[in-house]
């Protein structure tokens, strides 16, 4: 059997295999998870994480890093839980303005050659502050439609799986197939040559940032749909989760090497790893440490598969 695997599909194969291995382990530990509701319970909180991971991936595509992802998703969640149900128009305007703000950030970072890490670090305070201003104490109410979508029960496959597949397909199309995707990946790969070919780097970056913000907005709304209400600190962990998801999915920090399907798989893997741990029932002292250990195990698995694949290739 001779399959000619491109680098991209190899990049995908490994995360996919780690996900499958982990899923088998979870099923073994907890056979109840092997059902429609079981899968939904395992994965529904992965949906917002997946969206945030995609957003982070888009930023990483242009060689930047967004340290404000968690704060931004929290901010969106607060807006979605306060304005969207009561004053949808104002809510929408706020969210659109936030997306525009991201685009502006992209432009500023490019024009002034600022390190994205610092700017987004600063922005994380800004979004966090705005979230506290909007929602000083936890509360709010998810928009009915968001709640409806997130608790819907499609036939055959649970919502969480359907959503992940849809997200993967759409982003794969945008990032890997469309001209815009090629352009922003080109910016990540070699900004100078894209510029020399006559493209406007500024608009490419602004586009990448705005698109990322749009996915982050979806993440915030999806999150509120699941939790029914919000607080200012609700998604702070998404910053690190989203970065880890992209990396697990085979993406890289620089060079525009990303994989949207991989990122989705990475986010699912991370979520699943947490459940796997719960099912193992470790002593409370070591539960936190075990989360580190599981990350390492998943990555070791990745390395192992990588090796296998290299040996295959060497032949």
């Amino acid at each position, binding site marked *: 059997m001779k399959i000619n695997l491109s680098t991209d599909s190899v990049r995908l194969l490994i995360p996919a295999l780690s996900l499958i291995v982990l899923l088998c382990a979870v099923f073994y530990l907890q056979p109840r998870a092997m059902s429609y509701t079981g899968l939904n319970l395992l994965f529904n909180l992965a949906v917002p994480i997946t969206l945030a991971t995609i957003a982070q991936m888009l930023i990483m595509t242009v060689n930047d890093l967004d340290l404000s992802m968690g704060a931004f998703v929290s901010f969106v969640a607060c807006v979605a839980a306060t304005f969207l149900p009561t004053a949808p128009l104002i809510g929408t305007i706020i969210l659109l303005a936030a997306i525009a703000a991201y685009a502006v950030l992209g432009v500023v970072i490019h024009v002034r050659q600022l390190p994205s890490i610092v700017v987004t670090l600063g922005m994380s305070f800004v979004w966090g502050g705005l979230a506290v201003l909007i929602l000083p*104490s936890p509360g709010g109410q998810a928009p009915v439609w968001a709640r409806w979508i997130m608790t819907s029960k499609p036939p055959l496959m649970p919502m969480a799986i359907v959503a992940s597949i849809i997200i993967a397909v759409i982003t794969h199309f945008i990032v890997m197939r469309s001209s815009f995707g090629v352009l922003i990946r080109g910016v990540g790969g070699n900004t100078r040559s894209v510029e020399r070919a006559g493209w406007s780097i500024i608009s490419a970056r602004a586009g990448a940032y705005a698109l990322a913000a749009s996915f982050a907005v979806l993440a915030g709304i999806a999150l509120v749909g699941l939790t029914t209400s919000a607080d200012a600190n*609700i998604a702070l962990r998404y910053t690190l989760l989203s970065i880890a998801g992209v990396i697990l999915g085979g993406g890289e920090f620089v060079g525009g090497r990303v994989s949207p399907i991989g990122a989705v798989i990475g986010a699912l893997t991370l*979520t699943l790893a*947490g459940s796997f741990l719960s099912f193992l029932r470790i002593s*409370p002292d070591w539960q936190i440490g075990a989360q580190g250990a599981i990350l390492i195990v998943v990555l070791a698995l990745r390395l192992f598969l990588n090796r296998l694949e290299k040996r295959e290739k060497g032949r």
Partner: protein
Amino acid sequence: DTSGKKIALSNNYAGNSWRQAMLTSWEKITGEAVKTGVVAAADAFTTAENQATEQAAQIQNMILQGYDAIVINAASPTALNGAVKEACDAGITVVSFDGIVTEPCAWRIAVDFKEMGRSEVEYLAKRLPQGGNVLEIRGLAGVFVDDAISGGIHEGVAKYPQFKIAGSVHGDWAQDVAQRAVAGILPSLPEIAAVVTQGGDGYGAAQAFAAAKRPTPIIIMGNRQDELAWWKEQKDANGYETMSVSIAPGVSTLAFWVAQQILDGKEVKKDLVVPFLRIDQDNLEANLEKTPKGGVANVEYTLEDAQAVINSAK
């Protein structure tokens, strides 16, 4: 009979001594209960970071694991409602304590945080009838406990207008953050007559005052042994007087018994209240003695205590 039932503790944070004492109490009391066959299991779970999303996932996993009851100290009163609802729908009893949830299907063992804040000012009003400037040390912005206690304090100040809140900082319930924040604002503050805290940052505040070489005001203490020991030291040296309010970490064991009672078929009101733990000048020594060195003043509950709380709510 609940000997076949399994109860889980879903805890969102383990990074401070209060939470550690809470987990220890849980282990001690439930371990006993499992051994004597009251329940079949009582497992404790903690998430890595203090995050509602992570805890929601944890609760969903508990549903899959087939627990009969879930006892929750929640990261957010509202953000877990989705997961809690799913648990209830799956027929699971959900009891929340300390960090309670607002989802109507769950039970709540609440501390009256507002009252806790108010009582601090009331105490001050007794001590300092002429009033004065007050420094407020708050917790983590955006968290419900912080909002509630602070709300109580402000209500108290409104009632006793001789007090003025001269400054307010967020100490994030962490000793060093509180110390840092107080040290930063202190130079710009006028003379401070008292410091109101959310229980636990008193020692840090005392150190910041000492470092700035300012007279030590009345600092409301928390329940940590070193705070109590410092207070005792001051009391012996110069008759320093204050009080301490806090929540006993052992409230987790009360929640356990309440869950057990509900599983046993007892009729239990959805909202229960536990008193907060208060230590005064005269019972300081007694409390200090009971508190392990480096630990937290604590009260653990028995089945009888729980039944008393349940009955008093009826």
